[in-house]
């Protein structure tokens, strides 16, 4: 049913959310510039009211859009192009943010929640911080505004009607036309990681605004030092959430995409990595500042840089500028100008403000000694910044081309051809520096150092790590010099940080453990990356020696294996057999053979050709109607270990999508030491493109053997049936079914062609077996000779082309990620408690100053 009200209401909410965010900004500016307490109080409560109104409008927008998707209102372009009826509810959540508008909305939504927390945890900084906050929010809300003034388009609304978005002729005759079904969700996004990964990433993006807002508030109110304490826990929290989001994305890529890894140095991936490194750097300088008052200017620069880089990455991924260099950036929605304005407004605004205040920002003229912790942390921070810079420069090549072309020049620079090799070349050595510094820095952090002490502190960890590394190098056969250095440095970082950690455990100083735990995590991540990428090993080497293209380079070794169904092939230490294609049936575990299901007109419903069982339990009877996940086909590959004889099956997946063709996802055999990662690289084309041999006619008799496609076959019997492929026949019709048993390599198949007589016309329904590569037709029944004519056509048997990669020690990478998050958690907790203590100190102090008004305010808050 056509319902224009939903979209109008949604659009109204968008407009109110935009206007209220401007009101909030204005009122908070008034509050923070107020001349007396009363005026401030009034403006503040006004601003708070406006903010809550803003929050309600945002919830309204979210609710409307979600309802439109959930209730299948395909008269709306957003629902139509991102969702479909067969989608389970949890993937409707993914459809919500699949598009640009929805993902902006997600970001706006997180800001609302964060704003509520800021308002309620920090009254002192509330006004200036929330003013900055509200400005950012206004820019974001403008992105989904969808208002057009003449040629000027501001924002892209998620509530556009299909008829306004598409120029289809049907709308001329029937403006109220609502399509039956939506076009569905990109199958790559139909993965549980895609339900939780984008919200995590956007929460990370959203939190970075808080340190930035504090920093700007500090500069604005000329209170250069006090913003650090409340900003620090937020900075660490942002790093934790953004880091978690990045790693979830990596894990999703590893599990779902078929490039065989977790990090591809795609510009879209780089766009989040660049600000994250600067964010980590800013945590370190903020801590130095808190401890001894140096590095304030550096902190301010880094906090601003983090936020500007977040905006820059938003610009890169959403303006369409990466179109030619990235495979998965958003396409241009015509918002690039608006995004650029957003970026420049905050970048220039912050830089100008910092420049004006620069001379007044307190600095310490102390020269950092080489034995001070500040010196070492500062080197670490510099390394992080250079690391980030190294990724920023090549990622910005498309932007460079655009700028040159803007000024009439020609630039055809392309990103480095082998991105992984190019980035690894640099990032590897930065990683080594990070490992060494995070190991050594910790010693300086907790003790006053001099030459003698340093020597005695470092001796044991250094000797121990050299010992462990040499064993590891020998056992794992690491020969590449750079890898040896990285491994040794990382092991040193683990050993050194563990020794510090043990000291905390012994003295029960658990709240101080954050730093060493996260540094161990980082070192483990480095070790995991080193082995899983540096020693990733393609095991599916083609050894057939077939070469078709004589022009091809001689060194062309093919890293794929062709597997015909039921024909075992050797691969590395395994014998592989492709067992056929499988599907998942709703309401039962495991997989079902594709040939056990009869497809219907509805893609998502099939009829069981045989009883469907998993283990001993029969879930569906023959003839039952079952729901299937139509997009996914799983290819069962049986692995048999040649020596031990142990067997296991992997089910790499292929997905058919009308818009994107075929997409392969891997299946992974996980073990403690390494993962065996398998995906299909090619599968046969669709049914209609198959080439069949000419039909061969055979005279067969019941019970007698004959041969089809080199298999032994027997016509068991011919039976009269009342239904054909699950559909009852009509009155007066006659239908018979032949049961032909065929002995395959591993199992028996029963092929059942039908023969149907209606109004003296003959209908023949052939039976196709992909496994055997045959199509049988019951051509003729000759009762007088007691024989039957069977038509046999053959085709290529089913096959898959498969790629298998070993990933050693990848679990160390994931374990390191978890430790990093635990470390961040401990640190956030500690820094938040410090902030609360300082806040309540100030409050107590103020209350003692005999200000009854203040007291009442504190009590009511």
């Amino acid at each position, binding site marked *: 049913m056509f319902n224009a009200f939903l979209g109008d209401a949604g659009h109204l909410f968008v407009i109110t959310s935009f206007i209220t965010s401007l009101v909030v900004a204005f009122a908070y500016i008034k509050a923070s510039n107020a001349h007396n307490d009363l005026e401030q109080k009034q403006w503040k409560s006004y601003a708070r009211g406006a903010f809550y109104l803003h929050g309600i409008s945002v919830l309204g927008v979210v609710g409307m859009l979600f309802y439109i998707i959930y209730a299948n209102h395909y008269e709306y372009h957003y629902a139509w*192009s*991102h969702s479909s009826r067969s989608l389970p509810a949890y993937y409707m959540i993914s459809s919500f943010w*699949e*598009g*640009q508008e929805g993902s902006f909305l997600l970001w706006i939504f997180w800001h609302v929640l964060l704003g509520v927390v800021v308002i309620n945890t920090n009254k002192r900084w509330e006004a200036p911080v929330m003013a900055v906050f509200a400005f950012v929010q206004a820019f974001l809300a403008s992105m989904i505004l969808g208002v057009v003034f003449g040629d000027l388009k501001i924002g892209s609304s998620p509530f556009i009607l299909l008829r306004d*978005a*598409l*120029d*289809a002729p*049907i709308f001329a005759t029937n403006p109220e036309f609502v*399509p039956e079904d939506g*076009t569905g969700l*990109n199958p790559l996004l139909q993965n549980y990681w895609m339900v939780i990964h984008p919200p995590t990433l956007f929460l990370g993006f959203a939190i970075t605004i808080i340190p930035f807002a504090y920093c700007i508030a500090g500069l604005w109110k000329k209170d250069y030092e006090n913003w650090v304490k409340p900003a620090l826990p937020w900075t660490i929290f942002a790093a934790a959430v953004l880091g978690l989001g990045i790693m979830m994305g990596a894990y999703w890529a590893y599990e779902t995409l078929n490039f065989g890894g977790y990090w591809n140095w795609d510009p879209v991936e780089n766009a989040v990595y660049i600000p994250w490194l600067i964010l980590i750097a800013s945590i370190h300088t903020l801590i130095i500042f808190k401890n001894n008052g140096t590095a304030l200017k550096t902190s301010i620069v880094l906090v601003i840089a983090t936020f500007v880089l977040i905006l820059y990455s938003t610009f890169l991924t959403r303006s369409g500028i990466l*179109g*030619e260099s990235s*495979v998965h950036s*958003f*396409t241009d*929605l015509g918002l690039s100008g608006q995004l650029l304005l957003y970026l420049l407004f905050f970048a220039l605004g912050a830089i100008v403000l910092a420049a004006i205040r620069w001379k007044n920002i307190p600095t310490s003229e102390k*020269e950092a000694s080489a034995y001070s912790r500040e010196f070492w942390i500062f080197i670490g921070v*510099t390394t992080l910044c*250079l690391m980030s*810079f*190294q990724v920023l*420069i*090549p990622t910005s*090549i498309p932007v460079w081309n655009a700028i040159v072309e803007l000024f009439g020049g020609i630039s*055809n*620079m*392309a*990103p*480095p*051809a*082998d991105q992984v090799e*190019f980035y690894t070349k*640099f990032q590897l050595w930065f990683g080594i520096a990070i490992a060494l510094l995070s190991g050594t820095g910790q010693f300086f952090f907790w003790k006053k150092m001099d030459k003698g002490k340093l020597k005695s502190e470092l001796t044991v960890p250094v000797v121990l790590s050299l010992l462990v590394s040499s064993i590891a190098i020998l056992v794992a056969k690491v020969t590449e010099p750079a890898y040896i250095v990285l491994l040794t440095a990382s092991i040193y970082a683990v050993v050194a940080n563990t020794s510090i950690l043990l000291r905390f455990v012994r003295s029960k100083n658990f709240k101080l453990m954050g730093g060493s735990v996260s540094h161990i995590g980082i070192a483990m991540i480095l070790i995991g990356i080193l082995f899983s990428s540096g020693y990733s090993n393609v095991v599916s080497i*083609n050894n*057939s020696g*077939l070469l*078709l*293209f004589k*022009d*091809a*380079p001689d060194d*062309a070794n*093919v*890293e*794929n294996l*062709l597997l015909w169904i039921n024909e075992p092939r050797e691969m590395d230490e395994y014998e592989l057999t492709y067992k056929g294609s499988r599907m998942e049936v709703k309401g039962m575990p495991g997989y079902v053979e594709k040939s056990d299901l009869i497809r219907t007109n509805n893609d998502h419903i099939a009829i069981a050709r045989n009883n469907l069982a998993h283990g001993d339990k029969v879930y569906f009877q023959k003839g039952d109607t079952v729901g299937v996940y139509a997009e996914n086909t799983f290819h069962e590959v049986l692995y048999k270990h040649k020596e031990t004889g142990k067997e296991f099956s992997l089910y790499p997946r292929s997905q058919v999508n009308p*818009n*994107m*063709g*075929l*997409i*392969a996802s891997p299946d992974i055999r996980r073990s403690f030491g390494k993962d065996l990662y398998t995906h299909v*690289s*090619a*599968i046969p084309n669709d049914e209609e493109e198959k080439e069949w041999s000419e039909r061969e006619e055979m005279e067969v008799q019941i019970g007698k053997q004959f041969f089809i496609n080199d298999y032994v076959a027997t016509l068991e019997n011919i039976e009269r049936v009342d239904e054909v492929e699950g559909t009852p026949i009509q009155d007066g019709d006659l239908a018979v079914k032949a049961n032909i048993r065929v002995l395959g390599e591993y199992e028996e198949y029963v092929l059942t062609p039908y023969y149907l007589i209606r109004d003296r016309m003959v209908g023949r329904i052939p039976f196709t077996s992909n496994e055997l590569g045959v199509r049988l037709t019951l051509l003729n029944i000759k009762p007088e000779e007691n024989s039957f004519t069977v038509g046999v056509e053959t085709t290529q048997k089913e*096959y898959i*082309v498969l790629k298998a990669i070993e990933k050693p020690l990848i679990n160390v990478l994931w374990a390191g990620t978890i430790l990093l998050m635990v470390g961040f958690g401990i640190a956030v907790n500690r820094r938040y408690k410090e902030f609360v203590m300082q806040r309540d100190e100030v409050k107590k102090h103020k209350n003692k100053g005999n200000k009854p008004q203040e007291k009442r305010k504190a009590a009511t808050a």
Partner: protein
Amino acid sequence: MKKTHIFGIIIIAVCVTIIMSTAGDASTYVSFKEAKALAQDGEDKKIHVVGQLYKDHEGNISGIQPSEDKLSFSFMMVDENQEEQRVFYNEPMPADFTRSEQVVVIGSYHNDVFVADQILMKCPSKYQEKEIS
């Protein structure tokens, strides 16, 4: 000289190295003609060529030739200067290959064949307008 100055000089040196190296390793978008000229000059750097799959006069994609073992394939591509060229790719045909509106091949010439190390495809995305079925 103060320690900070030395430090500053080192940082600048590293930054310059990074920029120089990026400029050096950066590939270029070129046409087949230019790519061939580069290869004849003995330049073996990988380059990007942007183009489309070759279509016959009826608008059907033609010229795709998979190898017998299906583990590699070659195809005809037309670059932005309408120049046709056979491209060899030493991996199975990507599943959505024939649907791509635009292909970017990254590689270099080996004799008369362009050998692609990587193929980037632009497929009709979900964001583009579609027909209502």
